[in-house]
């Protein structure tokens, strides 16, 4: 997995709560058997005026000029500023894949749906939880100042604003360790293979009905 240590970038606001995974990447793009190439269809139903289909040339499609992603001032944004319950709905990892493929590395929101939040860490994206008041003030700052950027320092667990203000954030220590070092979860777990085998043997003895095959 790609490491995340300290990243800076332009902030794009998405002023809407309960943004669901269908909003992030509509289902027709889930037919792909790859992990990449979803960025051009990120927020597809809001970004374009017509219905998207996999394999279409998206450069020819009519853009929704009102949608924030299409506003020139947010071109190249890598930080997504969002509202409550971001990423609710399905477990599709295509949602973080699409965000990542587009270029988003950091998400700031007051809360996230559990599965989406977890999926972000598996893909080198840092989802940060901040108090609602701080999120509100960031929305105001982004609105007021074109080119508003910030830096997220994972090691120090703080966000640095252009005026020098530092905003601390919490992150699970294990997830932090994995992100900082770009660790592969499977490799880490397999270090405990002996423990898994011992557990499994005991479980097989005490609950053999879970190890049967079709009778």
């Amino acid at each position, binding site marked *: 997995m790609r490491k995340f240590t300290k990243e800076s970038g332009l902030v794009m606001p998405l002023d809407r709560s309960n943004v669901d995974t269908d909003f992030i990447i509509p289902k027709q793009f889930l037919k792909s*058997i790859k992990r990449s190439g979803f960025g051009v269809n990120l927020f597809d139903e809001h970004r374009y005026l017509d219905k998207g289909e996999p394999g279409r040339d998206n450069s020819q499609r009519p853009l929704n000029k009102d949608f924030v992603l299409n506003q020139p001032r947010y071109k190249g944004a890598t930080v997504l500023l969002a509202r409550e319950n971001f990423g609710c709905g399905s477990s599709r990892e295509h949602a973080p894949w699409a965000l990542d493929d587009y270029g988003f590395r950091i998400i700031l929101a007051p809360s996230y749906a559990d599965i989406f939040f*977890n999926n972000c860490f598996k893909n080198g994206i840092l989802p940060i939880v901040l108090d609602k008041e701080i999120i509100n003030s960031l929305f105001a700052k982004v609105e007021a100042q074109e080119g508003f950027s910030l830096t997220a320092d994972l090691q120090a667990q703080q966000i640095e604003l252009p005026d020098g203000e530092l905003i601390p954030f919490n992150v699970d220590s294990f997830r932090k360790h994995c992100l900082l070092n770009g660790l592969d979860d499977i490799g880490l777990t397999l270090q405990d293979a002996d423990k898994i085998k011992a557990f499994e043997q005991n479980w097989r003895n005490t609950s053999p009905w879970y190890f049967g095959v079709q009778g």
Partner: protein
Amino acid sequence: MTGKTLYDKLWDSHLVTQRDDGTALIYIDRQLIHEVTSPQAFEGLRLAGRRPWRADANFATPDHNIPTTREERRQGLEGIRDPISRIQVTTLDDNCREFGIFELDMNDERQGIVHVVGPEQGATLPGMTIVCGDSHTSTHGALGALAHGIGTSEVEHVMATQCLMQTKMKNMLIRVDGRLNPGVTAKDIVLAIIGEIGTAGGTGFTIEFGGEAIRSLSIEGRMTVCNMAIEAGARAGLIAVDQTTLDYIKGRPFAPKGEMWEKACTAWREMVSDDTAHFDRVVVIDAAEIIPQVTWGTSPEMVAPITGEIPDPEQQSSPSRRDNMRQALKYMGLTPGMKITDIKLDCIFIGSCTNSRIEDLRAAAAVVKGHKVASTIEMALVVPGSGLVKKQAEAEGLDKIFIEAGLEWREPGCSMCLAMNADQLGAGKHCASTSNRNFEGRQGFGGRTHLVSPAMAAAAAINGHFVDVRDMLLTLDR
């Protein structure tokens, strides 16, 4: 001494190892697999040169991309017109063959929606940990199993290690006391719960559903409730094991038999929360007060009783909720103050992992029997959850009731719940749907979804607009 909740028991019995920071490795008994969220996981295994830790813990069936007309299904894989969908389905077949994983392929009579097929085959059992790359895996909690959706990276992780890295959730109890009134169903219970606690109300929790009204539900009704735990923000929903659970499982193909069955039952009877268990949050709902529910917006929490009206965003004190409601009403083409019964419908969808089991189809058939679908309804689909549900329904003559009433009787799959196959809701069209999500574009680009129970969807089909199914049932009784 404080006892354990059912979730605590399931967690403790599957704990392989715990790190100092609270992350734990949890052993997974069963992984369910479908074609959409698995190809990248299998590819990851291949790239790393890994094999499944325990191939027989996995169980696959394709569902999302599967066509549902008889003509298409007769042609097998060739019947999947969209070549990208076809590749996804054949990729699942190829991967299951390569890695030695049990699959009910699209031509197998037992194929269907993975959350219908798993319990039907006895592949999901009480006391198990169950995962699937699908958020509606919470369904299986109805059998007293710890079951939740995971992302594709985790699908690969479980394939390779038989474990999942987890931090423990908090415990929530939602107790539905008393009895439901006639015409009110499991779907209405869970929609009412989501209306009460909101779509993020269960975030960070495992929800156990209890109380007399839950205990009185069949296993199929309990699956409907647990299915939508995720719509309340909880990855997992749970219902304690009782005699109803054991009766449901007995004799199913993957269930233990003979002496092993007796031993398993003894263990499974322990799959209940202790009387002294502590819950971090308790919500109590009076079943008698639940009225058939209809969603009017673009989030499952935007729900009202059939006797109600579309709420007014301007009456909302929270600015973000007000904005959300405005956006939702604009998308839905509805106005505040409008009666729910005045919402006119263009389409009806009876199906999905929430409501496509035999009891759902019986409930819908009982309402449409002897009636005709309203002339204003453009499309009305009944999509059974599995090939075996379809067979049972046909044995009972339900297919004929639907067809005579003017509904289409389809082949099993996810269909228009998420419209990854050809079954799609048109832009601007209103659909009474027994599925689980009313998000923008969920059932088709620009489509407008109203979530309801099977009986309510059937009543709407006949009338062309929402009606209180309780009134129709009164007429039927006479």
